[in-house]
């Protein structure tokens, strides 16, 4: 007889079904998104396919079904509420289908904004965290930057960049920006803002990981003749970046969602486009539920990819958190 613990454990077929469903969902989502982008910006230009922004599916059948269900709900007696609810779900699907092309373009902006900002932010965060920990008298400078950025609201930072500084004027004359997939100046300012903001947070995550690498290893690197900088580059950093992956994934997830603040400086990303449509059509629930699903899909994809990266680069023999100290004694004092 199966014990109670066995009963609660997922069986192999169940896990497989879960995986299959997840893979199917991922294929459907990314398949749709990539097809949209290619259709709108490549195929439509050369006259193939339905054309830029034209629906793949018709919203009409969903809308009429929803209307019919709503109209006949009363006839179902005690089930009227359920039928009514099903009707509104079908209606929401209709709305989603209707706004899907716009969401695809918005998702493009959201993803590019996030990816570019987090990568640029990382490039700043690595030296920043090194200065913060090993920078001697410059530590206070790094600390000041980090605390200033982390201590002020992101939205305020974006506003200062957008309204307070003359970036918009500098970028105005450039011809190619703002065309098709190429973003306009508000977008570039948003990238600058998110880069600065996430660099401060990433620097703190990396600092934490940096401090978990035994200082003795840097001493050992110097004892074979590597300079301090080479020791950091070849010994400390490769380990630090591995240990930082879980926290860094958190930052990536935050940034995906916080990128919606770019809407306030008119960047036409997901949230901006959705809120514009919502204020016109008043279909708030359906529209925000739709973008919630898009955000969720992007976030889950990012999480899965990062945990795969983490597994890929894991140091053999070392668990995720244990085993960072090798000897039985404390690390050496510097």
């Amino acid at each position, binding site marked *: 007889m199966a014990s109670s613990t066995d009963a609660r454990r997922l069986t192999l077929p169940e896990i497989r079904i879960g995986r299959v469903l997840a893979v199917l969902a991922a294929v459907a989502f990314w398949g749709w998104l990539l097809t949209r982008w290619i259709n709108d910006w490549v195929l439509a230009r050369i006259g193939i396919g339905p054309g830029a922004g034209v629906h793949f599916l018709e919203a009409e059948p969903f809308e009429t079904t929803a209307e019919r269900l709503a109209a006949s709900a009363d006839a179902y007696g005690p089930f009227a509420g359920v039928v009514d609810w099903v009707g509104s779900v079908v209606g929401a699907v209709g709305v989603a289908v209707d706004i899907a092309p716009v969401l695809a373009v918005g998702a493009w902006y959201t993803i590019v904004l996030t990816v570019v900002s987090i990568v640029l932010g990382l490039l700043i965060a690595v030296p920043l965290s090194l200065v913060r920990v090993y920078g001697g008298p410059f530590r206070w400078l790094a600390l000041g930057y980090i605390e200033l950025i982390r201590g002020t609201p992101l939205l305020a930072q974006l506003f200062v960049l957008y309204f307070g500084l003359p970036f918009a004027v500098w970028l105005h004359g450039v011809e190619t920006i703002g065309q098709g997939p190429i973003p306009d100046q508000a977008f570039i300012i948003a990238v600058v803002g998110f880069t600065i903001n996430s660099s401060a947070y990433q620097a703190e995550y990396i600092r934490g990981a940096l401090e978990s*690498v*035994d200082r*003795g*290893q840097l*001493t*050992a*690197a*110097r*004892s*074979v*003749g*590597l*300079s301090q900088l*080479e020791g950091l580059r*070849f*010994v400390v950093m*490769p*380990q630090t970046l*591995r240990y930082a992956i879980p926290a860094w994934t958190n930052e990536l997830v935050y940034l995906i969602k916080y990128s919606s603040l770019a809407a306030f400086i008119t960047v036409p990303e997901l949230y901006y486009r959705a809120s514009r449509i919502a204020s016109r059509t008043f279909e708030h629930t359906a529209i925000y539920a739709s973008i919630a699903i898009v955000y969720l899909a992007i976030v889950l994809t990012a999480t899965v990819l990062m945990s795969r990266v983490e597994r890929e680069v894991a*140091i*053999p*023999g*070392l668990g995720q958190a244990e*085993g*960072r*100290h*090798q*000897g*039985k*004694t*404390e*690390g*050496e004092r510097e």
Partner: protein
Amino acid sequence: MTAQRTDERDNERRRAEHEPLLRIENVWKSFGTEQVFRGIDLEVDRGDVEVLVGPSGSGKSTLLRCVNRLTEIDEGAIYLDGERVTDADANVNELRQQVGMVFQDINLFAHLTARENVTLGLRRVRGFGKSEARDRADRELANVGLSDQVDSYPAQLSGGQKQRVGIARALAMDPKLMLFDEPTSALDPELSNSVLEVMERLVEAGMTMLVVTHEMRFARSAADSITFLEGGQVVERGPPERLFERPERERTREFLESIYG
């Protein structure tokens, strides 16, 4: 270039005749208000093994770190092969190549295999090519009995194996002098033996060594001389037989009894 090399070698030979390989001269050092050294003098001849003993906190580790300038001295001078290495303008990274160091807490590079632990210095410091460095690393690892473990990561090795990788890593740089800071004290006794064997072979091969250890057997068999450090000074120094059997100072006898029973 070649002429210069020969010149250097001549100088080295000339120096070797008059100079001990390592000469520590009137070294003073303090950390804040804590005076760690009050005038340390110590000479280690080429091919000799000097064992350094002393109570905890007497500055044994600090002295080793001063020799390869992981810690800077306040006053005095240290000469390696006749060269004053404690000068502000001496090339520190070059000095460190010539002085190998083995640590109590081993400090292997955790993200690199045993082989990569050895090749890192060869590639980055000595400018070896990839295959050249690899061959050299494999030879060094074979010498410490780790031919089978070249592709293992530190976390997959026992303490004794890790410490032998640490020794191979230092030896690959062709050092003139090896510093050992309690290389076995973090290891279980069974695991210490493999490390001590490697050290004994190194002694036989004529390596000059400055060793902090409380391993009685090693000190008796391998040391040419033992230095007892306390209170920031060399209290007593002499060959192991004399120091163990007939120490001049009462304090030395007390200390040796306290650690060797």
